[in-house]
Structure formats: structure tokens, C-alpha cells
């Protein structure tokens, strides 16, 4: 019985035998897609940031005006600073709140782990507008809290209406699920028995946390921080609806460039600055992760 005549193998089949080729065909389509539709556009706004806008059109008149305005005018810098402070604050709040929660689910969740985690992640899927709407209607001047207070004859809380506090609350509301998820996934692979060992060695709970839990989960924590920091830094919708007149953040101004004023070139420059700042933070956190001290031995999955 001839082997060859019973199995017709096309040239395509023979090509397929090449493992490198198979790998490339599978992984390249998506990679090229991301390069073309995310990386290339990002690089293009770098180009555009050196151009000019004239009557709603981008003119390729290379100049540094946009950056001069951005970095020279204190207004823009103030917004950038405000956004950075907000992002840091929100990240810290999310971190402090998410860690114990993720810890609880990972360590004590048992077979309810999946449900508990999905429940924390679920609100994220409902979309930004609806979540901001919901928060606004609870925090706002005629929102639930303040209406309840006035109905019962008490003073409404100023800070909750159209303020940076409201923005912060809103941003935490939006992004805390990411932090919980990131830390949770890291803790899933964490060997909790190491804490028992440290206990035997005489470490008290807080010490054990600092010396064992935190370092070994730093990678996941770092990812969580970045996942919260980056969108918060860029947020435009939330501060617009919760922040009030004085609550505009960098993202809001950035969005404005693409709205009524049509100043795309300036907007591009703003986008570049935002992107660079995000990159700096990401790289900074990346450098802070010493892989070996985070417990990774480099074994392949």
C-alpha cells in the first residue's frame, strides 16, 4: 500500500510543515493590524503636532508653535499638572482599596472566586457615559445624596457637587475594577503558604506583607497601577460632567481641540505630550520591577 498515493499533500501542505511559517501566519495578522491601526496613527499625530491648522484643515507647515504654546502657556501646564495629580491620587485610592478586596477573593474566595471577580469587573462593561450619568445623579446638586440631605433638613455637601472631589470619585468608580482584576490575577499565582513560612520565621502580619506578599505581586500591582493611571490621566468625559467649571482636566481641553475650535494640530501636540507622559510612567514602573525579585524564574508557560 503506497503511502504517497493515499494521501495527496498539496504544496500548501508542504509549506505548512515549516514551523516558522506557521507561527508567522498565525501571529502576524493581528500584530500587523495593531501596527497599522494603532501604532501608525499614534506616530502620525507626532507628525501632525508639528503642523498647523487653518480653517479646519491640517496644513503641513512644519513649526514648533504648538509646543511653544503648550509648554510655554501656563494654562496648559496647569491642566497637565492637575491631571497628573488627579491620576496619582486616583491610582493610590484604587490601589489602597483594591488590594484588600483582591486579596480576599483570591485567598478566601474558594469556588465563588470567578463570580466575585466577574461581579467587580462587570460594571466596567456598561460603558463610560452610563456610569458617569449614574454617578452624577447620585452626587450632583439634585442628586440622591444631596436631595436626601435637604429633604431631611440638612445642608447639602458642597464638595460633592461639580468639584474635583466628584471627579475623583467618578474616576475611582470607573477604574477600580481594573486594579482589582490585575492584583487578583497576580495573587492567583501567589503561593499563600509562603506567608505561613514567614510567620514561622517570626514575621508579624504587616512585615510579612511588606517582605513577601507585596514584592512577589509587584508585577501585577504595577500593571494595575498603569491600567488605572493612563486612562485617568487622559480622562475627558468624567471631569467634564462631574468636575464643574473649575474641574476641567487636560483630557477635556484635548477633546476640545477636536470639537468646536477644530485646532487639530494643537490637539495632536497635546496628544503627543499625553502619550509621552504615559510612556514615561510606564517605563518608570517597568524599570522598578526587578523580575527576579518578583518571583519569576523565567520558566515558559
Amino acid at each position, binding site marked *: 500500500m503506497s*503511502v504517497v498515493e493515499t*494521501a495527496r499533500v498539496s504544496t500548501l501542505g508542504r509549506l505548512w510543515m515549516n514551523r516558522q511559517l506557521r507561527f508567522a501566519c498565525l501571529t502576524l495578522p493581528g500584530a500587523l493590524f495593531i501596527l497599522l491601526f494603532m501604532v501608525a496613527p499614534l506616530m502620525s499625530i507626532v507628525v501632525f503636532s508639528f503642523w498647523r491648522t487653518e480653517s479646519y484643515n491640517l496644513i503641513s507647515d512644519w513649526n514648533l508653535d504648538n509646543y511653544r504654546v503648550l509648554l510655554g502657556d501656563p494654562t496648559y501646564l496647569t491642566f497637565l499638572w492637575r491631571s497628573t495629580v488627579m491620576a496619582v491620587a486616583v491610582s493610590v485610592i484604587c490601589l489602597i482599596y483594591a488590594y484588600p478586596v483582591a486579596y480576599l477573593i483570591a485567598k478566601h474566595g474558594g469556588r465563588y472566586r470567578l463570580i466575585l471577580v466577574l461581579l467587580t469587573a462587570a460594571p466596567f462593561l456598561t460603558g463610560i457615559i452610563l456610569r458617569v450619568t449614574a454617578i452624577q445623579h447620585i452626587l450632583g446638586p439634585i442628586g440622591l445624596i444631596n436631595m436626601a440631605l435637604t429633604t431631611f433638613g440638612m445642608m447639602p455637601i458642597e464638595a460633592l457637587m461639580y468639584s474635583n472631589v466628584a471627579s475623583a470619585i467618578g474616576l475611582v468608580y470607573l477604574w477600580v475594577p481594573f486594579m482589582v482584576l490585575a492584583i487578583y490575577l497576580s495573587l492567583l499565582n501567589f503561593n499563600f503558604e509562603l506567608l505561613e513560612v514567614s510567620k514561622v520565621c517570626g514575621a508579624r502580619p504587616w512585615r510579612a506583607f511588606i517582605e513577601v506578599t507585596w514584592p512577589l505581586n509587584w508585577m501585577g500591582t504595577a500593571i494595575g497601577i498603569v491600567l488605572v493611571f493612563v486612562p485617568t490621566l487622559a480622562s475627558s468625559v468624567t471631569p467634564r460632567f462631574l468636575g464643574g467649571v473649575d474641574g476641567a482636566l487636560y483630557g477635556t481641553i484635548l477633546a476640545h481641540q477636536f470639537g468646536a475650535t477644530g485646532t487639530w494640530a494643537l490637539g495632536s501636540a497635546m496628544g503627543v505630550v499625553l502619550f509621552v507622559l504615559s510612556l514615561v510612567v510606564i517605563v518608570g514602573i517597568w524599570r522598578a520591577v526587578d523580575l527576579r525579585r518578583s518571583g519569576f524564574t523565567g520558566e515558559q508557560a
Partner: protein
Amino acid sequence: MTAAVLQLDGIVKAFGAIKAVDRVSIDVGRDEFFSLLGPSGSGKTTLLRIIAGLETPDSGRVLINGEDVTRLPPYARRLGMVFQDFLLFPHRTVAENVAFPLKMQGAAPAERQRQLDWVLDLVHLSGLEARFPHQLSGGQKQRVALARGLVSRPSVLLLDEPLANLDRELRKEMEIEVRRFQIELGIPFIYVTHNQEEALTMSDRMAVMNRGMLEQVGPKLELYEKPRTGFVAAFVGSANRLQGEIRGIEGTVARIDWGGSEIFGGAPAGAVVGDRVNYFIKSERIAIAPAAAAPMAEGHTRLAAKLRDVIFKGQYSDYIVALDGGSELVVSGPPALEGLKPRAEVVLHWAAEAADVFAAEAT
């Protein structure tokens, strides 16, 4: 001699700097149960995967029934294979698992059913067609894996340590069953294992591999009785391994000093006085008797020892003896010899031809 069904010609396969398979050439005939024996890392599994088409060799050829299939993908080679972890498809019933190769070959449903019934009957699994793998015991899973490998009547069946995950009782049973299948079907089985007892039980011919290279190929008795390298002597059968220095050579017999004792063995080719040698004596080839009782012939190794322990194994016993100077030997003999109790003085003796002697490699 029947024409070879499977031919491997100069197969070389390297992963990075490590040569997993180093110039291996083997022929397997139609009715042979052929074992690839070796320790883990010896390259035997890699070689099997090359035959199956799951790896491509760097150089060399694989021929099945005379056709060069080296570059053919696995699905074109029409082989059967049985895997160590069974690898049954968890989402398919027993019947669907077993019929899978037939389905891939496009056999008609009636034909599929016929083959299915035949092979399930062969492996004694009739009646379990509708079960899923997770509902089966280890032994049943193994038989499903076997059935799946045999159902399309392949030219060759490849087996990758299929019995390693079974418990001892089951393994002994399956060794006989698998052998029976091979004889009944008359197709060559290529059986990879690290268990030399298993290989000796089941095969006709064997190849011993070590670090990618073939140490020896041949009928199993030949590998057992006449090992050609020290590795084979140590790996096949249970042998005592001694190291010594040649003190004198008379004809073909060498007189060797082993830690103060004098032992005799066939001199390796080209050996001279002063050479260091590796000396192997199989435990069943040492005769053991109470002291002062044994006769001696010229050239016979005769050693005095003290019996340290007797390990009763049912059909035979292992006698652990200690010599002056601390060395120990394992002797296999009749289960309960008269006068042989721990701490008895004993005499060991064997003929020079009973030992396998090889020049020691410079370390």
C-alpha cells in the same frame, strides 16, 4: 529475510547545541516487535516523533515501505500511534475516538463500523462505545488508545511508553496483551521505553540508545547475552558493575585486579597489562555456595564473601554479599539455598566468559 517496512537512514536531529539524535540508522521488518530502549534524554522519543512526522530531522531519511516520507507531514504517513498519556479526545466517545483515523481517511460509515467492531473486539472493549474518556479507568483508556492506533491497520504502530502510567499489575497484564496484538496483526510495532524488563518481555529486536546515539541493535537475546558496550551491559539485565586493572593476559582471558580481589574475564580487543576496564557480571551468572563447598576450574573467578542479606523474590532470591574491603555484589539464585543464611560465609564463582569486559573510558 522479509523486506524492511521501516527504514531510518542516518537520522540527525539537534535542538540548539544539543544533538538529540545522532546518526541513527535502523531497519524494522514486517513481523517485528521492535523496542527503542534508553534512559530519559537518550533521544528515543525524539526518534519516534521523527518517524511519526511530528519533528523533521536535520539530515537523514525515513522510509516506509520503500517510500521516502521524511518531508511528509504526519497526516500523510498513515501510521498509528499510542501515547504515554493516552491523549484521548475528551470531547468524543470511545467509539468516536477509535473511529477518528478512519474518519480522517474518508472511509464510508459502513466500513468504519466494521473496522470499529473488529478492533473493539480485539482489545475487549465492546460495550463501552458510548462512554467518554473521563468515565474510563486507566486500563480502559489505554486499550482505547491502542484500538485507535490499530483501527486503520497502519503500516507501522508507534508506541511511546504506553504502559508507564499504569499500575504494576495492569502493566504486566498489558505487556502480554500488546505482544498478542502484534503477533495477531502481523504489523511492526516500534515500542519506546526506559524499562528494560518491559523491552525484554515484549520485543523481538531491540535498540539501546544513549545520548542520541545507538549503542547496539539486535535480537534481544543478543543484547542480553553479548552486550557490545559497557552502557548496554549496564542497562540491559541487572549486572554488577566493577572496575579494575588488568594484571595479566593469558590467551583471551585477562586476570584483573578488583580492589584487591582477583577476577577473570575475556580480554577486550587490543588490551594490554595495566589497562583499566569496566567489568560487568550479571547477577544470575554468579554461582553462590557455602564456603569450602565449591569446586573450581582454571580461570574461574573465585571470591570469598559474607552473606549480608537475602531478598526473597518468589521465583528467585537476590543474595547481597559483602567482600573483605567493603565491596558488595548482588547474586541471583534459587529461592532458598541450604546453608545460606545472613552472616554465612560463602563462595562466589563464575567462568571468565560469563563476564562482559570493556576498556574503561578516560574520564
